């Protein structure tokens, strides 16, 4: 009986094994991006921009040209690339320390200019690579290596909501928040990533998908518990859904659509 391949590693990924921790969401999202780039037929003309953080080595994994950017500056590097080669696909892959803390100016202004680039934003509520410090996205009460008594509103304010914020920037075009804590949501995340890249292919402007993602090692809990943490602790504060569609606010962000 002839064998039939029903599942294979995406051609969008390099052979190099991931360095990510067990239970981490980065590997899942890398796979989804790689599959989408192949399915859209744009892999060979794509340039990835990797951040500083756990995914600093992302350029090793995506089977296309890749640039490593300074901490938080990936959206600026991305628009430099896109301006130099407007017919190519450029995306940055950034964590919450990179995007929501040190890179807020670059992120807001990429949306503000309506840059025709895509950001894949991993929100895991912590600084992973540096050893589990508090991020702007860390939840109230969440213990980290720099909030050992739990994040307090008094000292640190409430966690930042990035897609909600960018929805208010007039030139942002497509914004969605998804999660990779279970299979159904992984499928929805892939659809969102595909829509984001399609937005860029169609030349419509700034697209971003914020993806809630587990960090069991940084959170100090087992992988399955980490999936539960995303669902039970993160999702109530960071509601999933489309925040901006075709340049218009959705009901989720106070619009009509």
């Amino acid at each position, binding site marked *: 009986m002839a064998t039939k391949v029903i599942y294979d590693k995406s051609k969008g990924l390099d052979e190099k094994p991931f360095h990510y921790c067990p239970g981490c969401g980065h590997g899942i999202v890398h796979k989804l991006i790689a599959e989408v780039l192949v399915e859209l037929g744009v*892999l*060979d*003309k*794509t*340039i990835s*921009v990797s951040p500083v953080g756990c995914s*600093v*080595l992302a*350029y*090793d994994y995506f*089977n*296309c*040209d*890749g*640039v*490593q*950017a*300074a901490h938080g*500056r990936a959206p*600026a*590097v*991305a*628009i*430099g*690339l*896109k*301006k*130099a*080669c407007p017919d*190519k*696909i*450029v995306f940055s892959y950034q964590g919450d320390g990179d995007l929501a803390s040190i890179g807020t*100016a*670059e992120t*807001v*202004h990429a949306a*503000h*200019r309506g840059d025709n680039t895509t950001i894949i934003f991993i929100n895991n509520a912590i600084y992973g690579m540096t050893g589990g410090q508090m991020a702007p996205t860390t939840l109230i009460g969440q213990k980290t290596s720099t909030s050992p008594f739990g994040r307090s509103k008094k000292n640190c304010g409430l966690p930042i909501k990035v897609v909600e914020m960018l929805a208010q920037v007039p030139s942002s075009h497509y914004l969605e928040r998804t999660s990779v804590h279970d299979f159904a949501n992984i499928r929805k995340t892939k659809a969102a990533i595909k829509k984001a890249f399609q937005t860029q292919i169609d030349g419509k402007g700034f697209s971003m998908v914020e993806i809630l993602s587990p960090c069991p090692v940084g959170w100090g809990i087992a992988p399955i518990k980490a999936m539960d943490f995303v669902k039970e602790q993160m999702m109530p504060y960071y509601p999933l859904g489309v925040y901006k569609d075709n340049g218009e606010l959705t009901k989720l962000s106070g619009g009509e659509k």
Partner: protein
Amino acid sequence: MAKVLMKGNEALSEAAIKAGCTAFFGYPITPQNEIPEYLSERMEQEGLVFVQAESEVAAINMVYGASAAGARVMTSSSSPGIALKQEGISYLAGARLPCFICSVTRAGPGLGGILPAQADYFQAVKGGGNGDYYTPVYAPNSVQEATDLVFRAFNVADEYRTPVQMIVDGMLGQMMEPVELNPPPRVKVDKELYATSGNSDKRKRNIVNSLNLSGLGLEQMNHERFRDYEKIKEKETLSEYDVPKDAEIVFCAYGVPSRIAKNAISLLKKEGISAGLIRPITLWPFPEKDFLKLPKTVKAVLVTELSMGQMIEDVRLALNGSIPAYHYGRVGGVVFEPDEIAEEAKRILKKGGKKK
């Protein structure tokens, strides 16, 4: 092209376009504003890229991205803005990416003032970004030379895959002089060997990166870069050496203050004092060899800079104790007069200089 009267900032901007620069990323700051203003119009006319970034930090990172894609690219700023670009300059050097960075310098530290100064010699020459790196630094003293050096800077950047800086003091940026733009042939390099231009269907995929987590690997990357720095030192050092055989004192000055030094030399000549000039045109690599060929009649070197004394450190290293070096500077945007530095030269000679 016939000579035209142009303001320094505008002339060097036009030179950048003629040099084949296809993208400019900048941020407003005085006294360099004529550069982005001029280019916002001209780049649009030429169908090229002009972006006013949200900050100097973003602008230099856009330069990094465009250069990674293989474009000829530039940014400009002034002293405090260049301070903000240091992170990006270090990344450009680390990732071996070419670009042209123009600093129209002003007085500091801090917000300082907008008058001309040369207090950013250290900033340009000794780095400011992290890690072991240098960038070639050009210091023109006329509008004509500024444009000639813009052409050279883009070629040197491409040939050695390095960011290149130019220091234009506020005076030169703002003054008008006749200028003729004569672009030399463009250096031929195959950027597809390293550029992330999204052509991975036609070649192996390229990665632009300064990260290397292996100690030995990163050490090797540093050594490779420094081998190129040796070539740059050998081939790209520029200076004006104008020292009479009987010179008693030699001025060392760069940028517009070198023209003030020339006037001081004329004043001294009228009084029967023979004086010369060493004018570094590249601040890095520094024209060290000029200081080793000074005639034995030279009793002192007088470094006249619009700073509290920065270039004098490189002059002393070059002299290596052979001749005493003195510094005369005005700061804060105050510019010395020719007779002021001529008097200083006479005072030094009277005091002794080198013992016979």
